[in-house]
């Protein structure tokens, strides 16, 4: 049985990653999960300098999901390299995908260049779709010209393959996917969070300090599957699918729709072993359905 998948020349032992921002750099969840069993650890977004993020409350629950407005708090790329990458050294079987954020093309590039010679970094995921920061973030991700340009700029400087992470808050995700492909992206990942809002009717005020937050969790899964399907039929670069994956069925659904690999985000919060549970569910499915190679189910539902 083969569960290996290959994205832009990087071979992942299996298609299961966790989603950026939901797993730190794996340290905290290593108490629950043997990180060496994951396809990849995808780190929390990292910027050129430390970002303080948004005021609290940053989190609220919604039905079958949550809103977050962390605002990309991160300690900056220096601390990240010294601490997080060093920590990840010990997990040789697992690939490391570093999620990169910035307010401007220059800031993305600064991070990408700093990471260029870090051997522990196998792939870069460029977050052009975070709805929780004022400048940069989602603004890039909603304009195809900006997507193409930033992709091209980052690609010229990056030594590792780059994955452009797309925002679902768009009219036509295919246009964004094609723009990333045109800009030279090695792969795309989707979806980031959908912008939502919750109001406290007793206090008559926003629940989140940031007013809006990014929605994630099982509630968004059907939208994510639709978008992965649309992109898979619009571009020829591989897709990392995410959005509400909670069970192995959700992961298989995403792969049938066209994802080469999948990321598990919010599910970690209520099931710390979600990634490995999903992996073993997929393996059972493969045995039961007589699937020799996981690659044979990618995008077969058309």
């Amino acid at each position, binding site marked *: 049985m083969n569960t290996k998948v290959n994205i832009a020349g990087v071979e992942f032992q299996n298609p299961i990653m966790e989603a950026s*921002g939901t797993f*730190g750099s794996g340290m*905290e969840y290593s*108490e629950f999960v043997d990180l060496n069993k994951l396809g990849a650890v995808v780190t929390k977004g990292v910027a050129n300098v430390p970002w303080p*993020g948004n005021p609290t409350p*940053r989190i609220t629950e919604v039905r079958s999901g949550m809103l977050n407005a*962390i605002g990309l*708090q991160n300690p900056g790329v220096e601390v990240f390299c010294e601490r997080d990458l060093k920590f990840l050294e010990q997990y040789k079987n697992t690939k490391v995908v570093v999620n990169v954020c910035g307010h401007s093309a220059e800031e993305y590039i600064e991070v990408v260049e700093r990471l260029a010679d870090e051997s522990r970094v196998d792939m870069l995921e460029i977050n052009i779709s975070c709805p929780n920061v004022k400048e940069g973030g989602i603004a890039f991700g909603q304009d195809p010209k900006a997507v193409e340009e930033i992709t091209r700029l980052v690609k010229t400087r990056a030594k590792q393959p780059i994955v452009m992470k797309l925002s679902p808050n768009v009219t036509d995700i295919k246009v964004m996917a094609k723009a990333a492909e045109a800009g030279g992206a090695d792969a795309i990942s989707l979806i980031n969070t959908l912008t939502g809002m919750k109001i406290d009717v007793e206090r008559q005020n926003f629940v989140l300090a940031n007013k809006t937050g990014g929605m994630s969790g*099982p509630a968004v899964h059907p939208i994510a599957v639709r978008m992965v399907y649309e992109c898979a039929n619009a571009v020829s670069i591989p897709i990392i699918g995410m959005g509400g994956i909670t069970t192995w069925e959700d992961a298989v659904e995403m792969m049938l729709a066209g994802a080469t690999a999948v990321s598990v985000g919010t599910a970690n*919060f209520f099931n710390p072993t979600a990634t490995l549970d999903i992996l073993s569910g997929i393996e059972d499915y493969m045995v039961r359905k007589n699937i020799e190679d996981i690659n044979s189910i990618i995008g077969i539902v058309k």
Partner: protein
Amino acid sequence: MKIKEKAVVLWQEKLAEGVYSLTLETNIVDYAVPGQFISIFSNDGSKLLPRPISICEINKDYGTLRVVYRVVGAGTEEFSQLKMGDKVEVMGPLGNGFPLEGRNAIVVGGGIGVPPMLELAKQLPGKVTAVMGYRNNDLFLTEEFEKAVANLYIATDDGSVGVRGTVVDAMRENDLVADVIYACGPKPMLRAVADFALENQIKCYVSMEERMACGVGACLGCVCKSKETDEHSHVNNKRVCKDGPVFLSTEVVL
């Protein structure tokens, strides 16, 4: 060592209006210390995030944890329906817990901040004074505290029991002194206790609250402002779930 498992409900009882005591059989007990909390999960697939609830009592002999909580929303409402033998998903122990210090400690609890003080009071090595604040005479856990501490003072908003006013009013009125104070309760209370401690040059630990998602320090959802640049985030943000919930009153912005 953190555990996520289905705990078995051994006992649930109502202590006061809307306040419940839930005793769980769980392996978490083996690793728990006072001031830590557990995440309790809803059985309803639409309510996914953990409800963080402080540990009120730890019984290693029986392998049980006790938590005491107030019904404030749909999750705690659901928990209040749990009956002996039911199962409920829990994760813990989470957070750092209270350092056990001092020869002469005051434990201060306000409202639903009272319960975590009980196990602390029991485990503190020196003489312990408890100051508990309630809304009115619908008290809870006072019998347990009477057994566990040397002196118990009560403050109520309406004056129906003990001192009328806040826990700090009760502390001032009784000229309480100590070499360490531990406090849990609403933010304004924590602020007042921290001020009292500063005035009297007493070391003070506070237990903080914030909305949580992961509960283990990964998502950065639950931060509070720290006075100094902190080691993890490098941006003056401490994670309540991992770096806390217990902080020195001087290291966080209250």
